[in-house]
């Protein structure tokens, strides 16, 4: 079974497509107003928090806050989701790298971590580790990661709480709205207008489940985070162990190769989020949370003409002709909204489980967008502020740190 990517279908969404999900100016402003307040609370804090802001930090935060809310307003006004989300998602990924590495340099003087940093349990935790720590945590009540449970930058406790809340409210929407790595391959997947590799065998979509199963079992058996140690492509742009042995050298070569292959080259040539869709164990794990989550993507079979545009444009292989015929997406759907934007017949929409199908697609979309955008703004907004401050520092002093 194969999916043929048809570049001729990758057209601009027709203007008529926007109408059903778009709001008028007044409605858009009214719906966006609570978001302005909520994101203001999350990014700026209360009056006490504001006192600790420097003038520059306040300006940067206000800029990001207004920018984010401008994008949210545009989402509501235009009825388009993915086109705006994607821009923010890529910016957040870039901001993450731009803040994470200078932060490491400031806090511990080096990017590559040492055996000492591990012995001191000072390695920042990320959500990608979560599937690996669950089995050992259940059996031994210990976390197999050399990080901090509660203190310091990116503590294990805070990341797990965010993941639980994200899974509950967004399901695998986490992968398109929260994950600060996903924007890297999403950005690369849009560098070419047309895919070079037009056919991807569907059997590859089973790979992430195999990776997840293997890594979870090996991590439990060895009591070490195997994916982090050997297979995480994002080590290349975050942190990795100092090369002091042949083993670490091989690991470093693997990280770089996987990053170049899965995050840069393959997304460029396929126009798909290859790392997210085919190799990310966290993504595969999040698919299960989609079953619990209240939001889903549904196809109106009465309006659908089976043109296949949604199937060919889905960046994570989450739609097949069979799933479309059944009226929904696969559990791997990241709720990016690409198919909703792309459908020329407005047959694809966000849906709240349990409610009448296609009764109120605008309401269902807004009810998904609110928690999703709050997550994006709260996690990504801070990174964007940090990146903006780093850029200003680079311009004014010639140094990022």
């Amino acid at each position, binding site marked *: 079974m194969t999916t043929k990517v048809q570049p001729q279908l990758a057209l601009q969404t027709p203007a008529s497509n926007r109408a059903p999900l778009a709001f008028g100016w007044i409605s858009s402003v009214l719906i966006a107003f609570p978001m302005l307040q*909520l994101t203001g*609370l*999350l990014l700026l804090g209360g009056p006490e928090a504001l006192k600790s802001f420097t003038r520059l930090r306040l300006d940067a935060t206000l800029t990001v806050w207004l920018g984010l809310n401008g994008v949210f307003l545009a989402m509501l006004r235009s009825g388009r989701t993915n086109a705006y989300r994607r821009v923010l998602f890529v910016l957040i990924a870039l901001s993450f790298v731009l803040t994470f590495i200078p932060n490491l340099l400031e806090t511990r003087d080096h990017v590559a971590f*040492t*055996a*000492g940093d*591990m*012995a*001191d*349990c000072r390695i920042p935790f990320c959500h990608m580790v979560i599937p690996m720590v669950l*089995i*050992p*945590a259940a*059996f*031994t*009540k*210990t*976390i*197999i*990661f*050399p*990080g*901090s*449970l*509660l203190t310091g930058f990116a*503590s*294990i*406790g*805070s990341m*797990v*709480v*965010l993941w639980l*809340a994200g899974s*509950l*409210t967004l399901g695998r929407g986490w992968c398109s709205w929260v994950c600060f790595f996903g924007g890297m391959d999403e950005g690369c997947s849009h560098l070419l207008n047309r895919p070079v590799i037009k056919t991807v065998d569907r059997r590859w979509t089973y790979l992430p489940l195999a990776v997840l199963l293997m890594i979870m079992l090996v991590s*439990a*058996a060895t*009591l*070490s985070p195997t994916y982090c140690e050997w297979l995480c492509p994002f080590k290349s742009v975050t942190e990795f162990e100092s090369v002091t042995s042949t083993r670490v050298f091989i690991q470093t070569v693997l990280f770089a190769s996987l990053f170049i292959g899965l995050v840069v080259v393959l997304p460029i040539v396929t126009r798909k989020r290859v790392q997210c869709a085919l190799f990310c164990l966290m993504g595969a794990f999040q698919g299960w949370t989609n079953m619990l989550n*209240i*939001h889903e993507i549904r196809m109106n079979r009465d309006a659908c003409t089976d043109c296949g545009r949604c199937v060919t444009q889905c960046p994570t292989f989450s739609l097949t002709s069979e799933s479309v015929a059944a009226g929904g997406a696969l559990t791997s759907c990241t709720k990016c909204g690409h198919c909703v934007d792309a459908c020329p017949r407005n047959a694809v929409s966000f849906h*709240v*489980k*349990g*409610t*009448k199908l296609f*009764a109120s697609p605008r*309401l*269902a979309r807004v*009810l*998904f967008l*609110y*928690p999703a955008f*709050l*997550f994006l703004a*709260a996690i990504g907004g801070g990174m964007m502020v940090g990146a903006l401050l780093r850029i200003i520092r680079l311009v004014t002093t010639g140094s990022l740190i």
Partner: protein
Amino acid sequence: MTAIKSFFGYSISFLAIPLVMAVFIGLGSWSALLVHGTRVRISPWFSGGDVARIVDHGTYVTRIYHPVFAGIFGQRREGFVQVDWSKKAFVPAQIDERVDLAGEGTPGFRIQWNTLTDAITLTSVSPAVIGLRSHDTLSDRLVVRVNLRNASY
């Protein structure tokens, strides 16, 4: 029935908004609640485990940890023990210490570590000692890990 399902669907969907706000505003408290509630700890394979004994040398202390053999089920054939030195006033540049693993007055191994040249020598006394696993100079202490055979295996 359809109306009830719709009501619950939209209600749950709407409740996600205050949930997200509550999570971000109280992130520190929720994290502490999760960690303390589940009583999870960092795996001793990374943290070194719990301190078994502290030897006070006046200007510095030696902490000898419990050997780590923990596996996912039961114990492993091999593991390690961590020993670290931290200052009260200062830690000598040349460490030379016989480490009593079991606390029975019999040294398990001897560590000679010149911290200026980073030259380190491990001398096994106990047959359980396999060799040096790692040695690191941290901001507040010097840490050595020594590979061990599990005597009770």
